[in-house]
Every structure is written in C-alpha cells, then in structure tokens.
C-alpha cells in the first residue's frame, strides 16, 4: 500500500478540492438540510468555511470554464443550470470523488489519507465503527423484541455514539434529511485535512487541476474514471497480485450497464430542459407567470428529499422482502414493472448472500477455529462492492425507464412518488453497506487493522457514492417531469 502513495494521493486531492470549490462560495447549500445532526456537522461547517480552499478555486486553467464560478454563488441556479459542474449541485461533490477516487484509488491513496486523517482527527477507525454497528444491531434487536422500547432513550444514546459512523456511511442514518449530506460533510471534513497534506507534495495542485475543470457530463466523467481504473488494474495486475483484492466499483457499475443508462437519462434530461426553456420564452403574460409558478412547485418537490425516521426496524429486513414491498409501493402506477423486478431480484440475491455469509459463523462458533473461516475479507469486500455496483446500476436503470415512461405516456407523475423512491433506494444501499461491513468485521476478526480498515472504508465510501448517483439520477428527472407537466397542461387547454 505504501508504494502506491504517490500516485494515489493527488487523485484523492482532486476529490477534495472539488468539494471545496463550490461550497466555499455557497457554504449553506447543504447545511439547511442537516439541522439535527449537530455532532458531526459542526466541525464540518467550520472546516468548510476555512479560507484555505481558495487556492483551489483559483487554479482554473481553461478560460472557457470561467463561467462556472459565476454559476456557483446562487444555490438554486447551480442545481438548475445544465452541463457544467454546477448542474450537479451539491451532489457534484461526490461524483468527482468517484471520478477520481473510484475503487482503485480507494484501495490506495484515498483510504490511506483517510486513515491518516482518522488517526489525526481522532475519528474512530472503521473497524471500531462497524463493530459498534453490530452491537447496535443486537441492542436494537433486543430492545425491539422487548416491545416496550422507549423511543428517544436508547436510540438517543446510540445516536450520539454513532454520530461519526452515520457521517461516514452517510446513508446509515434514518433520522431526517441528513442521510446523504452527512456523508458528504464528513468526507469533506476529512478531505480538508487531506488537502493540507497533499498541498505539501503538490503545491498549487498542478497535478490535479487538470481533472477539475473539465466541462463534461456525469456519465463521461464516470466513464473516464472507469477507464483510468481499468488501466490501473492492467498495470498493477501483473506486478502486484495483492491488488487484485480490490473490487472495482466503476467497472462493475459499467458492466451492469449503469453508465449507459445514466448517459441515456442525461440525454433525455438535457433535451427536456432545453424544451422547457424554449416553451418559457414563447409564452407571455399570465401564461408565463402561471407556468413559472408551476415549475417552481415542481422544483421544490425535487429539492426536498424527505427521509422519514419511522422505519427503525427495517434492520429486520433480512431477505429484502421489505424493500421489495416498499419499492413496489412507491412505483405503483408508474408502469415500470419489468425494470423494478430486476432491481428486486438483485436486492434479494444480495440479501441471501449476506445471510449465507453470516450463518456459518454463528453455527460453527463452538467448533474449531481453523475450519471456521470459509470466506476471506477480500471475498466479502468484493461481494459488497459488486452488490453495491449492481444495485446502483439497476436503480439508475429504473430512473431511466421512469423517464422514458413519463415522456412516453405523458401521464401525471407526482414528484413526491419519485422522491419517495429515491429514499427507499438510498435506505436500502445504506442498510446493505452496514450489513456488509459487519460481515467484514466478523470475517476479519483475526486480521490486522491495516488490512481490514481500508476494506471497510471502501465499502462505506462506495455506499456513499451509490447514494449520490441515485440522488443525481433523481435530479435528472426534474426537467422530464416539467416538460411532461407542460405538455399535459397544453393538452388540457386545447380540449
């Protein structure tokens, strides 16, 4: 791992620096959505406002891209404008993190830096964290089976103890809207520290700035990231067989056609966006005012992704049937059954995989130590990354199909149903990553921390990225819902 420090580190810094670029100018973009998580938000906010981020924003090298900073200052605009980084809004932060820190790097530079940051910041190690997850799960299982569980008592204690965990896993938390932003905040916080380290080795971020200013679409960035990943595999495979253990999220995501569906969804989204714009320019007077108001409403429902905290016992969802039920519920009347079925199937198989992983451990606890281990930590890690990649790809596919059906049938689609779907998907990703990391902890109980920690961190990171892709795909649906609304109201006035 140490030999890969040099190439790994600059990449990690890219992720970091992009995070810095926009939030510096719009410090409050994500903070309104994180009111109830003061433990991990507070340091992050401080970090986010630190002035040291400025140099990064200054290293823009291509004059063409200069329009981008102009987009950034207005949060509402930045989520609307298309094409540039600003379009991705706050989610752009993690996209780049995948672009640059995708799997290959996770095993190398970034994790290393995170580990460093962890030690220097006093963040509990991933092993500790996921060990605590297990404890918590047991606790919760006990308390929930005890029926008379006092809400706010045990859970509050757990909550505070897990403040950092939820910020690392990002999606683990079921309280409020913090789920994903929490993760970003923590990564960003870690990132700030990382940057200080990297800045020493790469003054002016010369090596990294080239990656940041590219005005390209999400799927392109991902594709490029994946290609880099492939090269790295090709280069390392022959020389270092140890590297094989690193599962490649980006490559798997593409294998499941996640990239293609994302690209297609982007195309539809972009075209819808420009159609909406041109409709707006042709309208005048009251009609225009009315339409603007309607669009504003749609926009609002897309900015409020509400995560409800009622489903504490979702942890009992061992075979994925609960997820399938919720998924079917949120897709009711949206006629994408075939695609949803693919996703459900993927989820069920993941769940049974996890069950298989945990079962033998419990059964053979009394038996000899030596025979016990059937799965290595690398196997568990690979299964986790593969499952996350597949579920995410299937989720993107689902959003793409939804987009096509909305445009095709032109039926009324409530944005709230779509955001509910997003919540369901993100929760599932969070739940699974949690289960996988506790599997990792069990499987790696005899491993040293420096073997286990990067793997666990990797799973958390990719889970956080998965959630971001799903959120991005959700945002891409907005112009599609808008144009569908416009067409429907045009039809109704004609009649």
């Amino acid at each position, binding site marked *: 791992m140490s030999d890969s420090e040099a190439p790994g580190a600059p990449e990690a810094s890219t992720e970091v620096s992009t995070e810095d670029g926009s939030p510096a100018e719009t410090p409050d973009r994500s903070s309104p959505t994180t009111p109830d998580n003061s433990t991990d938000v507070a340091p992050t906010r401080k970090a986010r406002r630190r002035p040291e981020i400025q140099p990064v924003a200054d290293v823009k090298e*291509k004059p*063409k891209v200069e329009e981008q900073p102009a987009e950034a200052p207005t949060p509402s605009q930045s989520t609307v404008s*298309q*094409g*540039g980084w600003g379009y991705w809004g706050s989610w752009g932060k993690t996209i780049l993190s995948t672009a640059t820190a995708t799997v290959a790097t996770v095993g190398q530079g970034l994790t290393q830096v995170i580990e460093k940051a962890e030690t220097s910041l006093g963040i509990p190690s991933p092993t500790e964290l996921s060990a605590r997850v297990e404890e918590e799960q047991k606790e919760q299982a006990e308390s929930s089976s005890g029926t008379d569980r006092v809400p706010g008592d045990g859970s509050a204690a757990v909550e505070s103890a897990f403040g950092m965990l939820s910020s690392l896993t990002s999606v683990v938390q079921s309280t409020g809207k913090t789920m994903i932003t929490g993760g970003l905040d923590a990564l960003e916080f870690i990132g700030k520290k990382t940057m200080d380290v990297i800045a020493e080795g790469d003054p002016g971020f010369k090596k990294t700035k*080239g*990656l940041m200013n*590219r*005005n*390209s*679409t999400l799927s*392109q960035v991902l594709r*490029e990231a994946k*290609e*880099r990943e*492939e*090269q790295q*595999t*090709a280069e390392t495979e022959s020389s270092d067989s140890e590297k094989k253990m690193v599962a490649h999220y980006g*490559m798997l995501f593409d294998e499941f*056609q996640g990239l*293609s*569906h994302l690209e*297609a969804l982007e*195309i*539809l989204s*972009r*075209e819808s*966006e*420009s159609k909406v*714009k*041109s409709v707006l320019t042709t309208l005048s007077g009251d009609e225009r005012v009315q339409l603007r108001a309607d669009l504003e409403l749609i926009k609002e429902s897309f900015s409020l992704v509400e995560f409800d905290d009622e489903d504490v016992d979702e942890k009992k969802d061992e075979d994925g049937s609960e997820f399938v039920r919720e998924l079917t519920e949120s897709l009711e009347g949206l006629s994408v059954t*075939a695609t949803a079925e693919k996703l459900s199937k993927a989820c069920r198989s993941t769940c049974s995989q996890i069950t298989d992983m945990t079962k033998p451990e419990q059964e053979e606890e009394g038996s000899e130590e030596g025979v016990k281990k059937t799965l290595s930590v690398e196997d568990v890690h690979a299964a986790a990354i593969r499952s996350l990649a597949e579920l995410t790809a299937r989720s993107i596919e689902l959003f*793409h*199909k939804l987009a*096509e*059906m909305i*445009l*095709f049938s032109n039926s009324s689609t409530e944005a709230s149903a779509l955001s509910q779907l997003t919540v369901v998907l993100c929760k599932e990703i969070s739940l699974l990553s949690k289960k996988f990391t506790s599997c990792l902890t069990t499987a790696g109980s005899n491993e040293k921390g420096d073997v286990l920690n990067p793997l666990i961190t990797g799973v958390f990171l990719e889970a956080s990225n998965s959630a971001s892709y799903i959120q991005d795909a959700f945002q891409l649906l907005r112009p599609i819902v808008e144009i569908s609304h416009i067409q429907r109201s045009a039809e109704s006035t004609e009649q």
Partner: protein
Amino acid sequence: MAYAYLFKYIIIGDTGVGKSCLLLQFTDKRFQPVHDLTIGVEFGARMITIDGKQIKLQIWDTAGQESFRSITRSYYRGAAGALLVYDITRRDTFNHLTTWLEDARQHSNSNMVIMLIGNKSDLESRREVKKEEGEAFAREHGLIFMETSAKTASNVEEAFINTAKEIYEKIQEGVFDINNEVRHTSLCFSFLLKPLHSSSVPVFPLFLLSVVFQQCVWFATLPLS
C-alpha cells in the same frame, strides 16, 4: 478489459423485425423467440478485435414502436454505426426504410456508418423481400448490406464486425473531421481513443488534439437548439 476504441452503435427499424434478438445473439450468443417489447432503449456491450486492436462496442437497442420515436431519436447522437433492420418476411418493414434512414441522417452525424440488415433469413419460405431488393436499396443510399438470422446466428457476427471495420477504416483515413462534425453533432462520444497509458485526459486519434476534445465536450453539453 482495456480497449483502444469505443464505438457507439444504434439499432433501428420497425417493431418486431428482430433488433433485440440480433443484439442478444451478438452479445450472449443465444436466441430468445419471445421478447418483451423494448421500452425506449436497452443496452448491450461486447469487445471485438480489429487489426489487432481491442474495440468496445456499446450498442443502443432502440424501441421500434412508432410512439417511442420521439424518445429514441434523442439517442442517435454520437453514434458511430447504425444497424438499420428490416424483416424479409414483411414487406412493410422494408417500405419504411426510407423514413428510418431520413431520421438517422437527420439526428446523427453524416459520417455514421449504416449497415442495412434483412433479418430472419431462416424463414426463406415466407420471404417477401428479395435479397436483390435489399442490395439495390443499400447501393442507392450508400449503405452496407447483409441478410442475417438472429435465430441461426447466420451473419450476425459479421454484421456487427463489418460495421466496426468500416468505422475503423474511416478513422484510419481520417475521414472523421471533428472540427466540422462537431458543430452539428458530437463525435466525441463515439470516437474517443482510449489510450492504454494516459493518466487523466484521454488521448485522441492522431488527427485530433485534446484541445478539440474540450470544445467537443463543450458543444455536446449545449442544448440542441
């Protein structure tokens, strides 16, 4: 896993001519007689080798239904190759070729290689369109032509690979002039050269500069009108 080029293909043609079956035969080497109606677009990918170079084909299998046309047209952009498919046992699917061709020409770049495919060649007894007619149509419109059977796999490999060869030749000849193309459509998605050893910025065919890529991407992100 590494590849030198990535080509985007689109498969177009009337509903029921066997587009999805052709793709399945090419990517999975199997035939599925009953296929769900394609919604919007589905995907397939396969690696092939031409002139010793690995080429990845990213295939967009579009829905043939008329009602999906407005959506599927959006997907034409950036395609390097198109498979235009008709059913030799249904004359109407052949008659609609002109419309499909116009569509393809209008919504993609002019250098796109188009392969005309008369599918279901195993159903000789029910043939309604003579092979010569297909050949004549292809000649007239500057297309490559082949009759295939997704069921027996006859000519399926050849159809996909010959299209790629044609694209590859055009690249070698430098026919694809990115500076001219880019104003109308974006070529960058289809003809990116994926180098084996670059670190961050993709390297392009010799006749391209990476600066062009920046512009190209920039244009590509602009709305179409």
